[in-house]
């Protein structure tokens, strides 16, 4: 039997083999082909990956990318035929105007949703720009309450805002203080000068006196500040019972180290959104300076296996598991969950699904997810304390992994 060559040069035997393979693929592989053909869902990730908060911006980006990789590995968006999620990356350089310009570009390129922007000032600009095209926008870290108080129908946040964090911090501090016999009667607040530090300091100044703690001084410092000697000398001269820092990572580390060098003897260091107090890098590199510092901050649920697995996965990638990583991860999950429930990338439908989100977030120390005006009312911070080189959750009790040590030094 000779091989006949068909028109176009394909041999008969090859033709039959190809036909059989194509048939087999059609029978067994069709669903896979369908999955591969589903249009990818594009999510814009806008973070300050260069500039003065580049470390945090990169952490956010990594967390968001991890979430996207996990979603895709689990089969993508099932209600859309297994559509894969595709990240579109942008650098805001720490500048609101560049963040907003990136949103415009992305909106025009047909982005389906945006996760941004680490800092509150950038998140304000990006969400507002996204509102012009009704593009769903989930804020990952920015804590300013103004972000969700402008009535923008496209702006959502799964983490807590600083109004709630400050209230929580004051209430828990009061509980911790009273449980120890109220040794803390005075406090000094040391905060950075931008929206986050100033806003937090303002709220604490108002609320602490209600709990019987007098704020004897508030010291604001610039970003960056590289010498805290004078500030620490002021602390030393005023001898507050509590020192409350609210600043970014570098400044926090320098402040804590200078306080240790100057042998500041306070009854407690109690941070609110401390840039380093709940950060493994600080704890590992400066264990003495970090020891027994308490913080009220974003944290994961240490009793959740899912949270611990994600932490291990991040660390396996060489990441330090900071709050930026898991908040950005959660923001992507929240947005994709809404797209999944909407069954499409129609902006109105996704925004409506985000507004109705009841996503299970038991891997976070949160209550049930409930969106009110774009803010997840179930979100809350926790109190952590550095104990023997570990970051332990000390409050609320249901998430606690250790007992509180207060006051410091017995």
């Amino acid at each position, binding site marked *: 039997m000779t091989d006949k060559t068909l028109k176009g040069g394909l041999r008969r035997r090859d033709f039959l083999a190809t036909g059989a393979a194509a048939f087999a693929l059609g029978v067994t592989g069709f669903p896979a082909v369908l999955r591969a053909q589903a249009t990818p869902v594009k999510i814009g990730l806008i973070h300050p*990956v*260069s500039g003065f908060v*580049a470390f945090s*911006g*990169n952490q956010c980006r990594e967390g968001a990318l991890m979430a996207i990789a996990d979603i895709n590995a689990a089969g993508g968006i099932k209600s859309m035929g297994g559509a894969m999620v595709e990240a579109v*990356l*942008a*650098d805001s*350089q720490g*500048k*609101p*105007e560049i963040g*907003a*310009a990136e949103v*415009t*570009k992305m*909106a*025009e*390129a047909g982005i389906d949703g945006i996760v941004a922007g680490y800092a509150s*000032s950038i998140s*304000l*600009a990006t969400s*507002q720009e996204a*509102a012009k095209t009704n593009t769903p926008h989930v804020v990952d870290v920015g804590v*300013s309450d*103004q972000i969700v108080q*402008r009535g*923008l129908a496209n702006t959502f946040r799964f983490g807590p805002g600083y109004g709630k964090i400050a209230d929580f911090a004051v209430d828990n501090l009061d509980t911790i203080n009273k449980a120890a016999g109220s040794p803390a009667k005075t406090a000094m607040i040391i905060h950075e*000068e*931008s*929206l986050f*530090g*100033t*806003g937090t300091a*303002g709220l604490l100044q108002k609320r602490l006196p209600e709990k019987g703690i007098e704020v004897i001084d508030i010291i*604001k410092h610039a*970003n960056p500040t590289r010498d805290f000697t004078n500030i620490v000398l002021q602390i030393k001269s005023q001898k507050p019972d509590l020192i409350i820092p609210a600043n970014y990572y570098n400044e926090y580390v320098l402040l804590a180290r200078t306080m240790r060098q100057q042998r500041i003897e306070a009854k407690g260091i109690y941070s609110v959104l401390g840039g380093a107090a709940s950060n493994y890098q600080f704890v590992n590199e400066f264990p003495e300076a970090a020891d027994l510092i308490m913080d009220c901050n974003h944290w994961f649920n240490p009793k959740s296996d899912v949270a611990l697995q994600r932490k291990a996965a991040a660390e396996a990638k060489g990441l330090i598991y900071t709050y930026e990583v898991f908040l950005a991860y959660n923001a992507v999950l929240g947005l994709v969950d809404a797209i999944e429930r909407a069954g499409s990338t129609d902006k109105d439908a996704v925004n409506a699904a985000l507004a109705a989100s009841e996503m299970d977030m038991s891997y976070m120390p949160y209550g049930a997810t409930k969106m009110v005006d774009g803010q997840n009312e179930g979100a809350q911070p926790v109190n952590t304390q550095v104990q023997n080189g570990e970051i332990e959750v000390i409050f609320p009790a249901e998430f606690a992994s250790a007992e509180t040590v207060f006051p410091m030094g017995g």
Partner: protein
Amino acid sequence: MRQLALLGLVFAALFTVPFVVESESWRTTIIMTLYAALLGQAWNILGGYGGQFSFGHAAFFGTGAYTVAVLQVQFGINPWLGLVAGGALAVGVAAFIGFTTFRYGLRGSYFALVTLAFAEVLRILSNTVPFTGAGVGILIPLDPGAASLQFTSKAGFYWLLWAITLAAFLTAWWIGHSRFGARLMAVRDNEDAARALGVDPFRVKMRAIMLSGLFSGLAGVFYAQFFLYLDPGIAYGPAVSVESLLVPIVGGMGTLFGPLLGAVALHAVSEVTREVIGDLPGISLVIYGTILVIMVLFAPRGLSGLVSRLTARMRRTAEGDRHA
């Protein structure tokens, strides 16, 4: 008059941009380029034509921006009035800084440092006083519409900026062709000689700084209305001062089109590097910085100077060919 005709031609072409460019993203890029040209021309009036190198133009920019924001948010005053007030207050700040520095004969690096210090003082003040929102900043409520100086389309913002920028460039052209401009440039080239010829350097410099302050202030008003959020770092931080002087330095100081050329070049480089290798954090800034260094090293008179040099060389070559 040829320069004025060319200016008219350029701005007539710029006026049509929103009709030609429909992409909102490109419109944003063009708006940011024109905004940089405005900042640069404002600085150029004092630094380029007047030779008074300011490192603190953020003082005027921030004043304009905060004026329109505070008047709207705290007092409910219409931002169109805020636009006028912002420009006027920036002129006031410029007059104050000018009076305190020129009155005592501060020049060169001393003047530069004092302007930098003024901007820093204003940054700290705005970080402290409650009516600016202190460190929390000030958020202008979203209220789209021309009446609230928040246009629904970017075209509206573009034409507003176009009009302010045109006014700044016409002022620069006037400086280059007026008696006042001749005095200003005489002061720049040799203040003592100018004084000996009967020019009052104090008066001339005061007028220059006030004009410069006016356009920086109006740029600040535009920024506030476009982005609707300000904090002390944005308004009075060094980034604005640096952008203001970088644009004419790259484009060509003391030239009419220098700021426009500089703004186009800087934004083109920035956009291209971000587009091509935007995913690598910070690499676009590294390339941007490298190109800047190369330009400053090899084209110290800016792009305008480079264009003039090339034109002259081509003319010489053409003449040489004719003689041969």
